[in-house]
């Protein structure tokens, strides 16, 4: 991280600090902040709408460098309207097939923000029971390709990548029934949802500032009878990560942690890694390593560099402690693990030994 990176990351944190609250504090930007980069990073991190809300009544709003924030705000408002309309349509298809899926992340989080232009979401995250997966696939086959591409359907088995310590019975047993217009669906219990939202972002290196805002907004929307013991039950290592992320949301964004939350320290590496992600983003589709001849030397080096594991996801995947010791050994070990995993999987694919493990939705419907 260069000093310019720290400056931008700090300004992003300052911008988003209590940005979801009815009366957020005035924003004070450091001198020399590259406004164009700052606004571009906010938009890339999904927080363009929140950024615009903070500055739209200031003289900064007329600067051309921040026009992107206003555009993002408009775009998010429009896509949210479209998503809300289509969600009803999608859920009606599920209801007609006798299914009441659990709706999580995306829409469930967006509704907690004071304005729907503040929390963009591209997909409908749905959870169905394993025994319902076949019917869910049928539903997806019947709907338009456009809607199908936005429906991301999981079972507890596929969701285990984020919540390995919650069974289908637990998730559905604790879920809450809800209705929207005439359609019925369920939402995760707040204890499971908070845990999922935090672990999801740790799993992905916490590179989106919006994700930490989600944690903050969720924290401040918890019911009075929220069961912290239930939220932190299960895998101790993951619970340690949850507490570290909650502490980070308090430190960087001013989230108000209820007194019942066990206090954790924010490791220095976690703060630095999250800041780095906010500034540098995340390449979700790195160049394929399959055809190295096409990539050339420079391309291969770049493809390898973007695969270097970030400290946050490496810590989660390797089950390393969240303490304040250097992450380089963890990242190195994670890199080796991924390399071996890649080779093992490739051999199994080539020899036809591996069965396909697929999510229910999105792109796996034949």
């Amino acid at each position, binding site marked *: 991280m260069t000093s310019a990176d720290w400056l931008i990351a700090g300004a992003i944190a300052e911008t988003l600090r209590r940005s979801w609250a009815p009366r957020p504090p005035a924003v004070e930007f450091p001198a020399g902040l590259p406004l164009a980069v700052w606004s571009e990073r906010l938009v890339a991190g*999904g927080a363009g709408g929140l950024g615009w809300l903070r500055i739209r009544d200031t003289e900064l709003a007329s600067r051309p460098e921040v026009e992107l924030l206003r555009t993002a705000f*408009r775009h998010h408002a429009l896509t949210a309207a*479209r998503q809300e309309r289509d969600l009803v349509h999608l859920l009606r298809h599920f209801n007609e097939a006798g299914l009441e899926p659990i709706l999580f992340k995306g829409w469930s989080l967006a509704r907690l923000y004071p304005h729907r232009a503040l929390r963009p979401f591209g997909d409908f995250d749905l959870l169905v029971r394993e025994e319902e997966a076949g019917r869910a696939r049928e539903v997806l086959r019947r709907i338009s390709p456009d809607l199908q591409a936005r429906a991301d359907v999981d079972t507890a088995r596929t969701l285990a990548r984020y919540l390995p310590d919650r069974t289908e019975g637990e998730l559905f047993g604790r879920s809450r029934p809800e209705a929207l217009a005439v359609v019925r669906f369920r939402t995760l219990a707040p204890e499971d949802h908070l845990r999922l939202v935090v672990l999801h972002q740790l799993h992905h290196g916490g590179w989106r500032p919006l994700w930490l805002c989600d944690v903050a907004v969720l924290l401040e929307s918890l019911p009075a009878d929220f069961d912290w013991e239930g939220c932190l039950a299960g895998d101790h290592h993951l619970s340690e990560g949850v507490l570290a992320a909650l502490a980070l949301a308090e430190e960087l964004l001013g989230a108000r942690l209820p007194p019942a939350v066990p206090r954790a320290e924010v490791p220095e590496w976690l703060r630095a890694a999250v800041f780095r992600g906010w500034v540098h*983003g995340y390449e979700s589709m790195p160049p394929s390593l399959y055809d190295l001849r096409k990539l050339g030397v420079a391309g291969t080096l770049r493809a390898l560099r973007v695969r270097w594991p970030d400290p946050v996801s490496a810590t989660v995947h390797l089950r390393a402690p969240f303490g304040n010791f250097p992450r380089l050994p963890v990242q190195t070990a994670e890199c080796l693990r991924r390399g071996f995993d890649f080779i093992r999987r490739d051999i199994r694919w080539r020899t036809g030994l591996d069965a396909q493990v697929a999510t229910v939705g999105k792109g796996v419907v034949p």
Partner: protein
Amino acid sequence: MSPSSGLVPRRRASGLVSEELDGETLLYVEASHKAFCLNAPAARVWKSIDGARDVETIARSAELEPALVATTLREMYDAGLLETPADALPASEVNLSRRRMIRAGLVAIPIILAITVPRAAEAASCVTGLPGTPCDPAHRCCTGVCNENIGTCG
């Protein structure tokens, strides 16, 4: 064709999403996946298009010159917001630089802005292209590894 020729413009009947925000009207055309922002004068024109009013009536309702309304309708058609055939629309009779007019303070001009933001603003984590899911040159993998012989992500 004169703007007062009695032409009745019609909005696109389906595939439009609209949203009011801070005095602006936002429109999303699903067929083209394009989004537009209408400023207040353009929004007045848009709201006056009800499938019954002709251009002159729309101009009166929107409190704008018929020539400006004609230009706005042409732009709305180009944006995919209208069903009215292009050749039925009145020819644009306004030939002024809008930028110049705005700079001169004439802000009561209908303006239609295209809205584009990076896809990354919505796409969050790697939810497609997970190991085991189908891939091809158009559908890449999060891992960057497409087992091309069997067509799934590695």
